[in-house]
């Protein structure tokens, strides 16, 4: 995952943010126990959301207390107390996802010293994630789809969807909960993440002649996002909205709307979705001629106040 599940500032209440932060810190501690302290850099909002999902499925309260963060020792943080399997699970998944990210960067042709470091880290993380065959399988699936010239966007986002689906199903199985609904939560979240990631990276990938899912599926050769046609924006809006709708449907089907952590997760996903719309419009799609081509819900984003990512949860 790529850290896209960020919360807009002020969107979560103080208490909700504290619960999310407790899971974020719990994940960071668990990553620190996985090997060397540098692995804590793999802590992400997405990993924290996975921990929150597992925690909500488990239905048992997670004890938390104020502790000093080793990276921000002047601040006390509300942290989940270690020892819960949810954090070890989320840490393993985060390492596997970090490994995929390194492998993706290597395939994109990172050069020099960074290539050397990425290669070593990728090999190290591959050993760490060896018990999760899904990760290696996802890499192979993704490369196979990307090599095809006539693929649909659905097919390109499928490997990420299947990977997150299988991670979510593993969490559900461990908690003796319905696996198919959990799988779909992960599957649609994976598709949602892949789509936003392709949108955010579009201009950068086009300028560096790197692979981009949107450019490949729609055979686009324009360098700017604001040159995309109206039909494509409507289609992408449909894909993203359907993903969010299905995630919420399956979260509710799992009964997570009856748990505070499940409700925070649902709020987080809806908030992150609206945030990305607003942020993308304000960063790349400001011109009047471009705004007219966007779907109505995107056009109205321009009038809303653009907020920044909340660093409070993640630091």
């Amino acid at each position, binding site marked *: 995952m790529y850290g896209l599940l960020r919360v807009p500032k002020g969107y979560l209440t103080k208490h909700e943010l504290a619960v999310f932060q407790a899971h974020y810190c719990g994940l960071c501690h668990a990553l620190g126990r996985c090997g060397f302290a540098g692995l804590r850099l793999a802590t992400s909002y997405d990993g924290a959301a996975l921990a929150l999902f597992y925690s909500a499925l488990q239905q048992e309260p997670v004890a938390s207390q104020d502790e000093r963060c080793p990276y921000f020792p002047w601040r006390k943080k509300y942290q989940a107390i270690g020892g819960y399997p949810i954090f070890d699970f989320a840490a393993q998944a985060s390492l596997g996802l970090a490994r995929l990210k390194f492998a993706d960067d290597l395939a994109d042709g990172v050069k020099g010293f960074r290539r050397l470091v990425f290669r070593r880290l990728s090999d190290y993380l591959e050993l760490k994630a060896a018990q999760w065959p899904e990760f290696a399988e996802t890499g192979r699936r993704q490369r196979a789809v990307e090599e095809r010239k006539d693929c649909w966007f659905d097919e390109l986002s499928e490997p990420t969807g299947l990977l997150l689906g299988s991670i979510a199903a593993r969490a559900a199985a461990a908690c003796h909960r319905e696996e198919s609904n959990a799988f779909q939560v992960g599957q649609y979240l994976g598709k949602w993440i892949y789509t936003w990631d392709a949108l955010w990276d579009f201009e950068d990938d086009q300028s560096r002649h790197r692979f981009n899912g949107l450019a490949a599926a729609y055979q686009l050769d324009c360098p700017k996002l604001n040159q995309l046609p109206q039909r494509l924006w*409507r289609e992408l809006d449909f894909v993203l909205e359907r993903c969010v709708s299905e995630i919420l449907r399956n979260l509710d089907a799992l009964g997570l709307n009856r748990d505070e952590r499940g409700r925070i997760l649902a709020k987080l996903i809806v908030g992150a979705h609206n945030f990305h719309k607003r942020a993308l419009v304000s960063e790349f799609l400001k011109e009047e001629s471009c705004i007219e081509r966007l779907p109505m819900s995107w056009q109205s984003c321009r009038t809303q106040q653009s907020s920044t990512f909340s660093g409070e949860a993640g630091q």
Partner: protein
Amino acid sequence: MAKLDSKIGENPLSAPLYLQAAEILDTLGFFQKAYTYLAKAEALDPNGAVLAEFSRRRYYHHEHEGGCSLCDFLCGMCVLDSCCECMGGDLIECC
């Protein structure tokens, strides 16, 4: 899906057939493909009934437990008004 495609081939101006295909693909999670069929259905049905039907059937209206919808609020107001009227007062004069 192949059967449906052949039906569409025989009757390419039928919006319900495109809608049916869109719903199948949507259920399988192929949203991009579903949208292409939905766009065709929409083009064949300019008054928007097809799209409205799709939205009604497919979009999930998530509600947080413990929340209060507009309907809940209005029902509450009606009950309060009735209670006031029983006691000789009136909360909402026009009803």
